[in-house]
């Protein structure tokens, strides 16, 4: 049932049971708030979201105000503004205001709101309450209880989302303090969410702390490649430096407001020192390190090998996009008629595993997508690791698409080792580690942050990737681009053969 109400004299239709805060959020009407979070229960303790309701004697908090028919709400009247101003004053009197040191500066609720409403001198002249700072309370967590405004979001997250109940509020009054039992560490895979939901700098991330001021970063809206869930993420990077700094969850139906700590590490392999920056080919002496070679040259060599080879196979990890698979298979399967396509998956994965929140044992973002594209080309397969089948097969050319995130492949060294024992391997990869091995050739691929595309998650939901930066090196290209280049090379060779 829908209800008509007005906010600031503008009419809106609300759903029965909705709160004024939810309705306002939905229509981008800003009501300042700290303790309210769309993914958590209502605490109603910051007392910031005061609104005026026609006919009611007191101001009400919007977060716990259910809409009723004909309700007339004001978010901008004088008493409301006065209440907001004082709410801020109350929040700031015991806040240390150590913004220069605080890592939250630039994305801090208090700071933003202060800039928005006031910039006035504090009225309290007495000393502030001092509390413990810089406590190590868990994985990726640093707690500063002095900056804490006791909104209790973190406590509710621990109770409601992860149900681990690791945080509590001790003591009472202005001595109240957030913490774990005797500063014991919180050890689970979702701790950094506490940093995200903390509206101030009470929780900061050990990993991101002091690395980069947030105003020097940009954010790309993309998808986490860490597992089959496919959480929507904001990937923070600096476009000038082409450096990646952190990953934060973005709201989507799939992951709500959260993501796991494992997924947050998915920016590390993107930075230039981890990357394969150009193509390589085997040295004369096969035991010597591979030599940096021009990409065009290597593609040419691959095209020649394709001509000569009798038995060609593809080894594909489910970590690339649907579009890349289509381009790849359209050429190799559709054009060349190669039907030996094998899946390359981790040897120790347990794809059935699920932690009850978001993380899944299938640590490939596009397992479903790969199988679906294969089926499109008439190759029906079950999900499973086929590396050994490939190794046992007598192929004189193997084109292998290495995993983007080597960390998700438990026995990657074994596989890379075995792979170099095969007669002729063209390895397409993005991680620098592959240079420790010897293959006939290595081609450098882009990472998920440098391209658009689609993953299909465990439930078949499409997850759209968006590029953050251009590739870290000019020699790097996507699978689609490489295949195009290869196809052009093959065509040129055919033409040559045809004419000669």
């Amino acid at each position: 049932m829908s209800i008509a109400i007005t906010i600031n004299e503008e009419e809106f239709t609300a759903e029965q049971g909705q709160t004024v805060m939810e309705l306002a959020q939905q229509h981008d009407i800003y009501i300042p708030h700290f303790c309210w979070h769309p993914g958590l229960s209502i605490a109603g303790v910051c007392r910031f979201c005061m609104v005026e309701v026609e006919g009611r004697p007191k101001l009400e908090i919007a977060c716990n105000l259910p809409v009723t028919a004909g309700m007339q709400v004001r978010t901008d009247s004088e008493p409301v503004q006065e209440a907001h101003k004082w709410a801020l004053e109350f929040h700031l009197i015991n806040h240390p205001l150590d913004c220069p040191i605080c890592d939250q500066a630039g994305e801090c609720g208090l700071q933003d709101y202060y800039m928005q409403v006031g910039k006035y001198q504090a009225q309290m002249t007495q000393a502030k309450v001092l509390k413990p700072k810089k406590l190590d309370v868990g994985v990726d967590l640093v707690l500063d209880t002095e900056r804490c405004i006791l909104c209790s979001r973190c406590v509710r997250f621990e109770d409601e989302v992860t149900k681990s109940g690791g945080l509590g509020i001790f003591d009472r009054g202005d001595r109240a303090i957030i913490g774990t039992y005797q500063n014991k560490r919180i050890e689970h895979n979702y701790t950094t969410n506490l940093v995200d939901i903390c509206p101030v700098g009470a929780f900061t991330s050990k990993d991101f702390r002091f690395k980069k001021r947030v105003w020097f970063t940009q954010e790309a809206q993309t998808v986490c490649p860490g597992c089959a869930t496919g959480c929507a993420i904001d990937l923070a990077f600096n476009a000038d430096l082409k450096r990646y700094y952190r990953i934060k969850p973005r709201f989507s139906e799939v992951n709500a407001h959260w993501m796991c700590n494992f997924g947050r590490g998915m920016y590390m392999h993107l930075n230039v020192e981890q990357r394969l920056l150009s193509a390589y080919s085997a040295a004369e002496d096969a035991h010597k390190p591979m030599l940096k070679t021009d990409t065009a040259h290597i593609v040419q060599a691959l095209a020649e090998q394709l001509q000569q080879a009798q038995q060609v196979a593809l080894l594909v990890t489910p970590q690339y996009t649907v579009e890349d698979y289509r381009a790849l298979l359209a050429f190799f399967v559709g054009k060349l008629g190669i039907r030996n396509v094998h899946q390359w998956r981790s040897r120790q994965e347990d794809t059935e595993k699920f932690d009850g929140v978001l993380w899944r044992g299938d640590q490939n973002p596009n397992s479903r997508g790969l199988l679906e594209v294969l089926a499109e080309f008439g190759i029906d397969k079950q999900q499973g690791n086929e590396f050994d089948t490939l190794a046992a097969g007598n192929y004189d050319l193997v084109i292998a698409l290495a995993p983007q995130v080597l960390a998700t492949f438990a026995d990657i060294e074994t596989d890379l080792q075995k792979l170099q024992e095969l007669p002729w391997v063209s390895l397409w990869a993005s991680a620098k580690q592959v240079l420790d091995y010897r293959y006939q050739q290595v081609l450098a691929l882009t990472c998920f942050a440098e391209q658009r595309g689609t993953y299909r998650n465990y439930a078949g939901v499409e997850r759209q990737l968006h590029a953050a930066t251009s590739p870290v090196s000019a020699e790097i290209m996507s699978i689609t681009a490489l295949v195009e280049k290869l196809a052009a090379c093959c065509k040129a060779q055919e033409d040559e053969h045809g004419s000669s």
Partner: protein
Amino acid sequence: MASSSTFDVALQAKIKHHLERFETRRSAILPILNDIHQQYGFVSPAQVQALEDEFDLPRLQVQEVISFYSRYRQQQPSRYHVQFCDNIVCRMFASQQLIAKLKAKAAGCAAGTLSVEPVPCLGVCDGAPAMLVNDERHLRVTCDNLDGIIDDYLQRASDA
């Protein structure tokens, strides 16, 4: 559990009784802490840990409760712990001077014998100024009778 428990058998029985007494086990936290307090005068961190280990009461919840309520202490109090009311009415009856006097007296005693804590309201304003010595209530305390009351306790302590 019984042999290695932090609590004696009688206290264990009380704790178990409280845990079954209410709709939720959590409700038993206050009664359990009150009983521990009754027996020891404080709740040690080891006991909090034991409540988790032996009775499955999350230590975080227990610690939250301990920190919130002013009754609970986590360190051994003196043998005679005086809670002296220092609210409006008692203040009108010179509670401050009496507390100061008690503090001076406590300083003169052997460590751990006597301590004083001003508390907000004991709910006996008609008998102001009032104090609790451990569990015993004393009303209409004056500068004259204060010494007598405390000396009685100290006498008992030295007799024992």
